């Protein structure tokens, strides 16, 4: 017995197994849900949500335990996995988003009569995939993480199997997602080819040739305008921009957002987007850092296009989920602007820009889930309530949800003193610090159309008569989720200091670019 224990201990301490604990917890609980779901009566199905919640909490505890390892930048499994503040920060966002979406899902699934354990298990598996996307320091780990996340989302998007729109969106999401994954895999294969031709000049054993350090060294040692590097750059960036729904690759987003079950819409728009951004940042700041001047223009162009199309297409939408899809495209534009500022290579601009990106992604999670949470609260038998007219007279039917809706909309638009404003402030500040005054001006101007369409939602909730729509029944889980979302949105705006410190803690520095 004791030698088994010893083997386990050495796996945990020396083999890097301890670094996997957050992911292992989630996998364990997901499998537990799949097993116990079989034994549960139909009315006891909420137990699955409880199990999923427990899994998230245990995973969060393990994440917290890793903080000392993270400060030294621990890596394991032949350096194919790293645990650094960057991973802890994004892992935290994923776990918070998962917990909130679980809280919002329980009643939704009961009303839709699709209350199955697989839903929660797939959510936990998706979280595992996202964590591997961020902690992976190896092309294969990153790609497998991405696919685990994506496949879980294809199924979750089509989880309302009797609903036509849900089926349609799942098929669209699957086809376009597979397409973008193929483009990304092609880029990774070129990167692997670059890494395989290099020799390792440093001391110590050479990591596997898919390791990011090896590939970064290979990219660095090539003559500057190198077509193969550019080819890899363009394919990898396109593949990932597809996942974050930036503009030339955004077509899937409105349809998928509209068709998917509303909690999953919130989850896709927050967690999947954040994870893809994290992976994009990890690659841009390591492998592609030597060629940053090449991708700076590319990212800036995509950012401008996303801001333009996202904001103007949102104006004419009458479906809230579609409207929020286009608005999330414009938010992607802002985050990309932050990356542009960070890429100019000055220390100050880099710090402000990356801080802004991290802060923006963090509060974006809360604002967006919040906006969808109000739609979820209004759902009732036979009505998804995702049309603007379904919001009519919300201030009479449920004053509390009308107030929180107002807060989320103001924050999404970027009105002080709410969280969204601070995020935009840091990104625009970074743009000015690095001399991109025109981009900063453009970013500031696009707040005007954003205000218009966010206020259309507010207007329906506050100024229109309710008609004969009943008052929504808000469950305890929904109340907890809404208050937490509302609290963070307000707190991060009024007193941003701890949140900014968290964002600063998470910064990932390219080699030769120290933070101290």
């Amino acid at each position: 017995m004791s030698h088994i224990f010893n083997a386990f201990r050495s796996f945990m301490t020396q083999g890097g197994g301890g670094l996997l604990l957050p992911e292992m917890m989630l996998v364990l609980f997901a499998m537990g849900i799949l097993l116990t779901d079989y034994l549960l009566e139909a009315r006891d199905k909420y137990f699955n949500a409880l199990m999923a919640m427990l899994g998230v909490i245990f995973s969060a505890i393990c994440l917290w335990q890793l903080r000392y390892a993270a400060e030294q930048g621990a890596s394991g499994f032949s350096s194919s996995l790293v645990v650094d503040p960057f991973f802890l920060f994004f892992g935290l966002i994923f776990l918070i988003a998962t917990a909130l979406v679980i809280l919002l899902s329980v009643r939704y699934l009961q009303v839709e009569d699709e209350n199955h354990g697989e839903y929660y298990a797939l959510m936990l598996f998706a979280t595992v995939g996202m964590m591997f996307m961020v902690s992976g320091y190896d092309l294969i780990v990153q790609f497998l993480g991405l696919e685990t996340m994506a496949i879980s989302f294809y199924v979750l998007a089509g989880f309302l199997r009797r609903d036509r729109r849900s089926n349609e969106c799942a098929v669209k999401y699957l086809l376009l997602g597979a397409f973008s994954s193929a483009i990304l895999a092609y880029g990774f294969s070129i990167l692997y080819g670059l890494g395989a031709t290099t020799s390792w000049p440093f001391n110590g054993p050479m990591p596997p040739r898919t390791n990011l350090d090896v590939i970064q060294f290979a990219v660095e040692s090539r003559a500057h305008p190198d077509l193969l590097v550019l080819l890899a750059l363009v394919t990898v960036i396109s593949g990932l921009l597809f996942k974050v729904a930036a503009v030339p690759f955004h077509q899937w987003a409105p349809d998928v957002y509209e068709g998917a079950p509303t909690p999953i819409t919130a989850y896709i728009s927050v967690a999947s987007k954040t994870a893809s951004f994290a992976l994009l940042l990890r690659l841009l700041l390591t492998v592609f850092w030597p060629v940053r001047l090449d991708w700076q223009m590319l990212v800036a162009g995509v950012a401008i296009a996303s801001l333009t199309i996202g904001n103007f297409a949102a104006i004419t939408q009458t479906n809230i989920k579609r409207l929020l899809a286009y608005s999330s495209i414009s938010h992607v534009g802002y985050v990309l602007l932050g990356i542009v500022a960070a890429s100019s290579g000055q220390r100050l601009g880099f710090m402000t820009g990356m801080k802004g990106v991290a802060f923006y992604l963090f509060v974006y999670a809360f604002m967006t889930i919040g906006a969808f949470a109000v739609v979820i609260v209004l759902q009732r038998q036979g009505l998804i309530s995702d049309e603007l007219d379904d919001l009519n007279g919300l201030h009479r039917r449920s004053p509390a949800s009308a107030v929180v809706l107002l807060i989320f909309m103001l924050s999404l638009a970027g009105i002080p003193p709410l969280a969204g404003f601070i995020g935009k402030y840091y990104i625009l500040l970074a743009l000015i610090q690095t001399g991109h005054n025109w981009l900063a001006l453009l970013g500031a101007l696009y707040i005007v159309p954003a205000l218009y369409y966010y206020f259309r939602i507010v207007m329906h909730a506050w100024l229109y008569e309710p008609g004969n729509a009943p008052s929504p029944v808000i469950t305890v889980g929904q109340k907890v989720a809404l208050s937490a979302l509302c609290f963070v949105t307000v707190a991060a705006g009024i007193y941003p200091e701890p949140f900014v410190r968290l964002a600063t803690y998470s910064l990932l520095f390219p080699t030769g670019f120290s933070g101290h």
Partner: protein
Amino acid sequence: MLDQIVFYFFAVLAVISAVMVVTRRNVVQSAIFLITALLATAGIFLQLHAEFLFIVQVILYAGGIMVLFVFVIMLVSLDVSLNQVQFNRQWWLGLLLALVLGAQLTIAVAVGRAGLPLGEPAPAKMLEPSTQLVGRVLFSEYVLPFEIASILLLVAMIGAVVMAKKKI
């Protein structure tokens, strides 16, 4: 010399049958040409001394996946597919884009190739048996991706069951 003859034989066979797969109207014929294409590729792997890839290709693709294909073909009605339009109406646009993309890739590889030194080919007898090599690498350097892949497959399996089953 013999090596080259074998290579070109399998390569030409693979390309011709791949073209036949998409141009045949009858789905069953397409499936049979697909088997030929996959087996010809397996032949190329064997000629390159990649025994592991060869056996994986035969067992997985020519064996497992083909059975899946034939099952699907049995489920769809053949008469309908015989009368359907075989190609998308915008095929000329697709062809144009494919040609442009192909040209771009060819140029990129041709220009960048100078920086990609092709290693000296090892004499065939010196090669270690590739199955052992794959196994050793899979359970040492790449043990983490190996484990994540198992999660990925589990997710795909659950997903297929959720989507396909009438009552979960």
